[in-house]
């Protein structure tokens, strides 16, 4: 033992992460040299864990078990399958009849013609207005943009990105142009999606690739206490992301907000990765 041992209140504060910074440093310093206190920390942590385990039943309803999740998912799946199955059955039944099939084909043809008719003026509007934005053709715009890699906002769809980036270079006097762009073709999808901050897309792709695995397995690999901690940390990150995104919406050129946003995404990836690694370790222990 290095010197007088720590009080249990201080140890509990250390475990709960509630110590002030200067106390934390001195406690850490003490712990690094005092085996007895480390032992007390271990015991206190084990007790905390035991309390959480004892409360598992009470906490249980907050966090559905794996079996409950799978039952819920099965139910949703069967409902979905049931609905689409019935829908498919109706369609197959209807189209088995030649007269009905002809009538449906006619309705489809009329609808398609109407859509084409309604869309064509907007497309023309886009093509006509795009050159006016940068004072050059659309192709020249895209060349110029490729050589000037500094946009603040990006969109999933390439063509829209070019037009929007071009529009960002024009004086803020043509909102009608953006409306026209958004009404046409794929741009509608881009409107539904939020603008990507430079570099954000890569993080989002990584997260969306990891998320299904983590969501499917987290109940199996995390204990109740860990699951609570996981959800809490995830909520902290989500809150941080949403606050930063709001800030970026307000001020799209804020480089500092962009950095904070990307750091939050990295933290989210680290958090998801910790679950994946845990799952791997559990598998190897089996």
């Amino acid at each position, binding site marked *: 033992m290095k010197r007088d041992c720590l009080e249990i209140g201080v140890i509990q504060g250390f475990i709960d992460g509630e110590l002030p910074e200067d106390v934390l440093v001195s406690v850490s310093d003490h712990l690094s040299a005092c085996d007895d206190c480390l032992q007390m920390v*271990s015991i206190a942590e084990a007790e905390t864990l035991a309390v959480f385990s004892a409360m598992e039943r009470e906490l249980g309803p907050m966090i559905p078990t794996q079996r409950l999740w799978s039952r819920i998912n099965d139910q949703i799946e069967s409902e979905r399958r049931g609905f689409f199955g019935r829908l498919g059955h109706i369609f197959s*039944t209807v189209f088995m009849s030649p007269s009905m099939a002809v009538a449906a084909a006619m309705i489809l043809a009329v609808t398609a013609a109407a859509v084409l008719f309604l869309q064509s003026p907007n497309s023309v509007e886009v093509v006509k207005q795009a050159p006016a934005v940068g004072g050059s053709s659309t192709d020249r715009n895209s060349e110029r943009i490729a050589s000037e890699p500094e946009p603040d906002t990006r969109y999933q769809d390439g063509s829209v990105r070019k037009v929007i980036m071009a529009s960002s270079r024009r004086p803020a006097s043509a909102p009608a142009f953006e409306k026209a762009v958004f009404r046409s073709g794929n741009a509608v999808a881009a409107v539904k999606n939020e603008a990507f901050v430079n570099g954000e897309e890569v993080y989002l792709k990584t997260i969306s690739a990891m998320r299904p695995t983590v969501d499917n397995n987290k109940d199996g690999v995390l204990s109740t206490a860990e699951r609570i901690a996981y959800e809490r940390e995830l909520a902290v990150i989500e809150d941080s992301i949403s606050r930063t995104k709001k800030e970026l919406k307000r001020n799209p050129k*804020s480089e*500092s907000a962009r950095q904070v946003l990307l750091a939050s995404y990295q933290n989210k990836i680290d958090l998801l990765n910790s679950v994946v690694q845990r799952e791997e*370790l559990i598998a190897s222990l089996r």
Partner: protein
Amino acid sequence: MRSAIAQLLLPLLSAFVASAIISISAEAQTRVTAEPPSIPLPPAAGVPSPFAQDTFELAIPVERNVNISLCVKDGRAKVNGWSRGELRVFADRGHKFDLKVMQRNAETGLASWVMVVARPKIEGAAVNECLEGDDVELEVPTGASVNLKGSDITVQIDGIGKAHVRTLGGDIIARNISGGFTASAGQGDIVADRISGPMNLLNTTGNIIIVSSGPTGPGDDLKATTTSGSITMKDTIYRQLEASSISGAISFVGGIPENASYNINTNRGSIGLSLPSASGFRLAATYGFGTLNSEMPLNVLTENIESGPIRKLVGDIGPGGGATVRLSTNSGRISLKKM
């Protein structure tokens, strides 16, 4: 005409209704007959115990830089370095085990890679790598490299060459490791004291404490990541350091070497640096919804003048210098204090 359409539609409608009824009833039947997932049963009683009644011990001569792998399911694992060229494994009320030599030095014939494996519970059954029991102790040569994994164990390692530890729960305490240390723990703290070489520590809900550690070569770095615990670094002299936490505080106490590159970030926690008064480095601090306080002389080079809560500041602390320290917190305070 109407009757013809009616004749055409009626069978279709009745067929649709009938198939819908059949499909719904089939689904209902599936729901009724669906069995809950089976839960594996515990092993039957009467299986011969693989556990030693008291203690169990094995020893073999090994290379000085032997690589040792083992898995301890629960209890306490202790690894100590000694000056002998011998590996000794001791289990107190633990699992009986074997020392499986995976590789030998062609010249000396000594074991250079050894796996500690539990004996099968039933003769002829598949080998389960993991030991179970109260205490497992290893005496290994000081240059040995130990690869340890476990479920819920307290790990203590002292005076060896290299260590790689992965646990689901329990503390990991490592001291006097000369060639690098990597550890990942689910719950529990990680303590790294007097470690030389690269270090990579990952914790989920516990704290990380690093004391009196540094690199052995130019490329050795320190990476510490925890989700909800705090990270404390004292007298660490790495040139490359990366520390990140989601909701924990990060504190650094000590000097920053010349030309160092430090990257410290937390989502919701404070960052505190206590530095010698003569410190000199370039600071790049990004803090959203928080504050920056510096007791050190700070010469601001650039500061964003955007409206909004997220701020970025670049400046020189003291006389500046080749080292760069990047601090980033979303909603916490950054403080730089004199030691």
